[in-house]
Structure formats: C-alpha cells, structure tokens
C-alpha cells in the first residue's frame, strides 16, 4: 500500500432500473442513476424510502430484485464490486474487547490488499483525533468516539467507493467538519462518495439524489 493516497480515474457507478425487496416488501423499483468519481452525492428522502437498502444493494450486501448495478473502474479489474466499496452502516463494526488501533489494523488486513500500512493507520488516527484513544478498548468509547473510529476505517483502508449511511450520527460540530473534509479529500482524488443523510454535511451545494416518488439525478 502506498503512502500517498492513490488516485482513482474514470470511476462510474451506475444503477439501472434497480428494484429491491426487504422481506417480501418492494422497497423501491425502477431506480436509475449514475454517479461518477470526483463528486459527493447525497441520498435524501423521507424515512423508510429505502436509502439504506439502496446503499446495501450498491455495495453488494443485498441482492437486487431486478435491475443492475455496474461499476466502471477505468482499469481492467475482474474483482467483484464489493471489494471496491466501503460501507459505513448504523453500527460501527468495532469489537469492544479490542483497542481502537487493533480494530483498525484488523480491517487493514481484512479489507486492504494484504499489508497493513503503519502510515495509513497513523494518518487515520490523527485525522479523526483518535491518537489518545488508540490503545483504549473500543467498548469504553462514547457514541461519537465510536463513530469517529468507524470513520477512521475509511482512511486506514483506501477504497474508491464510499457508501455512508447517516455518517453524522452522534458526531459533534468539530467531528462533522472532519467528516466534511474527509469527503472533500476523497472526491478530490476521484473517489465516489454516496451519503444517505438527513443532516447538512456542511459541504455547500452538492448533488442530491432524491429517493421518493421517483429517483432523479
């Protein structure tokens, strides 16, 4: 893993007439849109409209009922879409009995390409203000600190597509600013960021994908 953040070129994530089921209930159907690298896209819409479901389907965590999702990475790459995605859900995927840095190192080994890079780990801890908490078991963290440790994963492991589900939950004003900076840095190198949120991310005007009566983009 290189110390310099890699650049992504010609990324494009396209959903075509996507329909998803939760249980037997059709959450949405006929959703088509395309997002390309270099911009933050927010996913908005009322509760229960299927924002989380859509993010999970895009990441490959949920099989679409109909329609297709395609990812163009610009390079020849046979690996499935899921290995290009970061998913941040309502839980932070931290093990309470492991320290913050142990959690991050595990994800570096598991989600990264083999080697755990010390620089990326330190960068993640510094960016999210977790340096003093690095050796504390994650079980002792507050809600906001847990969320920051969850976000640190995005920095510790480089992946081109970020699918974030309500990333601002539990974050204070300063941490929200850090999140906004992270998103801007990520899209500045050509990454895709798709954020389901009800809150203002503090990024100024961003592209909105409105899920509801019909998805428009």
């Amino acid at each position, binding site marked *: 893993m290189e110390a310099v953040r890699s650049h992504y070129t010609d990324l494009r994530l396209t959903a075509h007439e996507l329909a998803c089921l939760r249980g037997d209930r059709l959450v949405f159907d006929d959703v088509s849109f395309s997002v390309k690298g270099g911009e933050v896209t927010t996913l908005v819409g009322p509760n229960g409209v299927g924002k989380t479901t859509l993010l999970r389907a895009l990441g*490959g965590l949920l099989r679409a009922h109909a329609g297709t999702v395609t990812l163009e990475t610009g390079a020849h790459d046979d690996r499935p879409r899921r290995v290009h995605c970061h998913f941040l859900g309502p839980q932070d995927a931290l*093990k309470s009995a492991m320290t913050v840095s142990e959690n991050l190192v595990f994800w570096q080994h*598991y989600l990264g390409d083999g080697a755990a890079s010390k620089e990326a780990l330190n960068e993640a801890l510094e960016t999210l203000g977790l340096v003093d908490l690095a050796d504390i078991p994650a079980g002792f963290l507050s809600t906001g600190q847990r969320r920051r440790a969850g976000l640190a994963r995005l920095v510790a492991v480089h992946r081109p597509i970020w699918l974030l589900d309500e990333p601002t939950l539990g974050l204070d004003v300063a941490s929200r600013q850090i999140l906004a900076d992270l998103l801007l840095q990520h899209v500045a190198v050509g990454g895709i960021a798709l954020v389901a949120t009800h809150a203002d991310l503090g990024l100024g005007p961003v592209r909105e994908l409105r899920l509801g009566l019909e998805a428009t983009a």
Partner: protein
Amino acid sequence: MSAFIAVLKRDLLLSWREGGALGTALGFYLVVVAILPLGLGPDLNLLSRISGGVLWVGLLLSALLSIDRLFARDLEDGTLDLLLLGDLPLELVVAAKALAHFLVFGLPLVLLAPLLGLLLNFPLGATGVLLATMVTGAPAISFIGAIGAALTLPIGRGGLLLALLMLPFFIPVLIFGVSAIEAAVLGPASPWPAYLILLAVTLASLVLAPIAAAAALRLQFR
C-alpha cells in the same frame, strides 16, 4: 491468505479477552460427566464400559454450548456486513471462524477429557486412543456446528434449534468416535476402520460445512 489469518487471529484474541465462554464449556463438561456416576451407582465395570461414550457425548454437548454465538456477535455489531466486503470468499471466513472455535473450545475440552475419564474409571491404557479420536472428531463438531449457527442466526438465541437441526450430522462423528475407542478397549476388532471413517467425516466436513454455512449466511443478505 493474510485475511484468513487476520480473521483467525481476531477470533482467538476476542475469545481470550472476553473469556468466560470457555470456562462455561469446561464447567458444563465437568458437570455432565461428574453427575453420571452419581446417577448410575458405583458399578466400576459398567462405568468403565460406557465411559468412552459418555466422554464423547459430553464433549459434543459442551462444544455446542458456545457455537450458536459464532456469528451472532458479528451480526450485532455490523462486522458481518464488512466481512462480506472483503476479497476473501465467505466460505473461508466461515472456515477461519470455525477453526478458531475448535482451537478455543474444542482443544481444551479434548484435553480435559482424560482427566474426566478418571471419574468414570476409563481404562488408562486407552487414553491415547481417546485423545486421538477426539482431536480428530472435534473439528467436525465445530465445522458442522457452524452450519447450524449460520442457519439459526436470524432467530437470535438458536442454541437448542441448532442442536436439533444438526443432530443427524453429529451422529456419525459420535458413532465412529465411540466405536474406535470401544474397539481399542474391548477388542477384538482393530480400532482403525472406525477411526479412519471418523477422519473421513471430519475431512469432508472441513470442506463441505463452510460452503453450506456460507450459503446460509448469504440468506441473511437477501
């Protein structure tokens, strides 16, 4: 491969740090074995004859006690979602977790068995056979149990249901494990045929169980 090792090491570390569960399993094994002579009376010949079977049944039940939580914690804290986003096939994730379960629970239980055998007048000369069959069979319990753990994941606490569902698959392990010991203790047949079939059952479960368990886990993500 590094991802496989990472999952294995993480599960071993977590079991070590969280503790408790192993103590429960060992204590349960002790209770099951210790209570039996009290119920059956002090007939040393009878105890000696059934000791191999009792030790095996106790091992199976004690190992199953902890396996229903194999995936539950990862589901609760969101880890399972991210395990799906890795390059490592889900089958190998399951295999790593089942292997960790064997190392954390199976091995200590196996090592406790000869000691508990003393309570049952287990013939000391057959200790080697006892350990050999158990070390060979215990991985199968962990791997087959993983299928049950994956299937019962949506229900929450599916411990009993898991045991019911997987019972038919545990029977061969039990039968051939016990008959190898009996052949060694009572003769006249050689323990090898039963032992080799036990080995075959374990090898098959090492390969097939992760596939079945991964398929069951994927049902979670429909």
